[in-house]
């Protein structure tokens, strides 16, 4: 197999692209993943709301796709909790409760619990996380849904130099690298948690810490803990992203990070590859099949040529003619409100990855 030649080239590394790359790689395809950023993982925690799942619920293969995604997350070392038939309320930065179907484990302990006292713990100097406001709002919201749980604001500070301004990123980096800092954090949190059964903290418990480190931290803490995702960059989201990326690389997916697609090379109704805008000369990644999962916020590499897609997710031009028979457009349809959900991103990524893998089989001869 030639170095620049792949069975499947996936463009985009958000929920959709990562799932597509993994689906194709699990079908023993040689996969290249091209991306310039982590998609929505930088702004969110990577959780799936119940509404998201509901919007995609008419698809017969939704549960299969989400089960695949959860298995993927488990293997990547970033397990998700929950399932698609039930949901629970989890707290947000605005002091709301959001109905969530699936979420990374560190965020899963946040549901309203009757007769449970929770400390919402902020960090001195950390902007964008107002524990007093959140505690007040959460108490109100909990009462509104008939929960007798209480929420109280607490604040911690560190003797460690964590720079100015204090950000969750800096705390997370120290958490990853510095065992003394982890000890200090545990002590500070334990003191703040005294008298409470559970604590909420900003999403800051490391970007790359191992599952073992997190487990040790939790056991030393000695009470239930839940993270709340903060303003970008979202530490919980990037944590999931890094684990997924590492896992994909481990199963043989080749990552091309940092350079946008210059051109989707299409000849005679077949996508011949992707030209990546690398310095000096563009790199031409040839794939027997390609998946575009570039999201709603980036311009499509196909430009205005693509007016829609057929039932096999292949791009159509404005006359309804097929643009390329080995190219699959994953992610939300441009003008469909029902598609704009993270569950749909996973579902279309899963479908596109599998379609690309099976199409590649037909083309291999």
């Amino acid at each position, binding site marked *: 197999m*030639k*170095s*620049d*030649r792949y069975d499947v080239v996936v463009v985009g590394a958000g929920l959709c692209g990562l799932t597509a790359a993994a689906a194709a790689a699990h079908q023993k395809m040689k996969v290249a993943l091209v991306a*310039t*950023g*982590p998609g929505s993982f*930088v*702004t969110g925690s990577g959780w799936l709301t119940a509404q998201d799942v509901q919007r995609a619920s008419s698809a017969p293969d939704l549960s299969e796709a989400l089960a695949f995604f959860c298995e993927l997350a488990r293997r990547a070392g970033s397990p998700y909790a929950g399932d698609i038939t039930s949901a629970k309320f989890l707290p947000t930065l605005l002091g709301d409760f959001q109905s969530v179907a699936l979420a990374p484990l560190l965020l899963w302990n946040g549901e309203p619990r009757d007769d449970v006292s929770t400390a919402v713990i902020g960090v001195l100097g950390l902007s964008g996380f107002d524990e007093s406001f959140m505690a007040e709002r959460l108490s109100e919201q909990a009462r509104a849904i008939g929960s007798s749980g209480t929420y109280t604001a607490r604040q911690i500070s560190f003797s460690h*130099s*964590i*720079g*100015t301004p204090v*950000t969750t*990123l*800096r705390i997370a*980096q*120290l958490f990853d*690298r510095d065992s003394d800092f982890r000890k200090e954090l545990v002590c500070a949190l334990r003191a703040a948690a005294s008298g409470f059964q559970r604590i909420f903290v900003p999403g800051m418990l490391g*970007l790359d810490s191992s599952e073992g480190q997190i487990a040790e931290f939790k056991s030393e803490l000695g009470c239930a803990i839940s993270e709340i995702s903060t303003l*970008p*960059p979202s530490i919980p989201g*990037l944590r999931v992203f890094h684990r997924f990326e*590492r896992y994909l*690389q481990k199963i043989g997916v*080749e990552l*091309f*990070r*940092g*350079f*946008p697609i210059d051109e989707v090379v299409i000849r005679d109704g077949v996508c011949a590859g992707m030209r*990546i*805008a*690398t*310095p*000096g*000369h563009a*790199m031409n990644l040839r794939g027997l099949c390609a998946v575009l999962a570039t999201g709603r916020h*980036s311009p499509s590499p196909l430009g205005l040529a693509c007016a829609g897609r057929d039932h096999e997710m292949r791009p159509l031009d404005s006359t309804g003619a097929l643009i390329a028979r080995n190219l699959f457009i994953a992610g939300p349809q441009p003008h469909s409100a029902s598609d704009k959900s993270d569950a749909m991103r996973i579902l279309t990524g899963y479908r596109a990855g599998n379609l690309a893998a099976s199409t590649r089989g037909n083309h291999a001869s």
Partner: protein
Amino acid sequence: MRLDDFAIDNCLKCALCNTVCPVLAADPQYPGPKRLGPEFERLRREGISTDTEWMEYCLGCHRCDLVCPHQVNASEMIARAKAEHRKPLVRGLRDWWFARPGLLGKLTTILPALSNLALAVKPARFLMSKLMQIAPQRSFPKYTRPDLCSSARAASTSAKTARQRVVFFPGCFIRYNRPELGRVVIDLLERNGLSVEVASSECCGVPALANGDAAAARSAARANIRAMAAQIDSGLRIVTACSSCGHMLKTAFGGVLESDKKFADAAQKIANNTFDLAELLMAQADAGELDTGFQRTNLLLAYHAPCHQRSQGIGRPWYHLLRMIPGVTVEDLDAGCCGMSGTYGFKQEKYPVSMKIGEELFVSIRAAQPQMVATECATCQMQIEHGTSFKAIHPAEILLRAYDRTAPDASRNACSESSKDCSSDLCECGPCRQKPEGRNY
């Protein structure tokens, strides 16, 4: 990395750049690429000074540029601000020299033995630390009289049947410190059907840009274009074995000649025709022209991709090439920046942060317990050997050696002079094999 005036407006302040900045991870006080780059750039464009000593602390690793979903070239903005930054006299003088490794190489190799002695003896190192603020913990690489041109020309005339001709851009380290590595590169290329001319090039200019000396970078770029004029016109492919030289050539000398139309066109031509050695060998493999007659070599390697290799966007060609050798196991460390960044780690005030950045890489090397580390950047090699007890070498040496484990080659010849300073890490001569420590092979 799209270099245009609108890049600044593309910054949405998501701070993703900050999450990958090695300096920020090591020193929480560092303002980070978001602030030093696009945030301050807005002020700079209004004529408001944003000068701070922190500008000097940017490694120029380009990780922030690569991670940006909107192609904001933060590190290039910082590099331009760095050129405006005023340093105290001693640091300025030291960095003037650090910006000119070519000149340093020419001078030290007039009498290499004397220069090496002067750079190695303790009193001299002490004086350098006191007078020039050069970290006393570091050792300088040994200088050797440059003889790459003559031997290469002699070699290339014998390869008349070669189908293609390429130009080898050796860079300062190969020219003045490790010409034998240059011969390894030439042997590898010739073995794979390419006839090699050695460019009579100067420093690529990366050290000048890194030290905030835009004038020196421009003058280096012009000198290189003049030196390679004939080869550029004939459209020959240019090969680099140093990832920083490759990065510089591929980015049209970091855009330092943008305002000079005549030179800018030539720089772009160079950029279009420049290939990393491994990239070219992989292209040979794709064309079915790579000699894959590798001998079994039982070797456990850890591969570290230098930042300037990643910034070229060529994937991981060395990782794949090394894995073609039967018996070789390669672990891709993927553990971030080594922290050396050329001359950065030699600077006394930056030594602690340099070592702290490297810690993650050191830990992952120790965990992998390889027989040696393969990495194509000379200063990454220095940092790895300084921070761990593991030997680090250029992967080209491993590849060439795997072709024929009995035939003498350039790296082997080097060791016959003195087994103590043996520069061949795959050497199997008696004294080398008996060396108990400092060698993990």
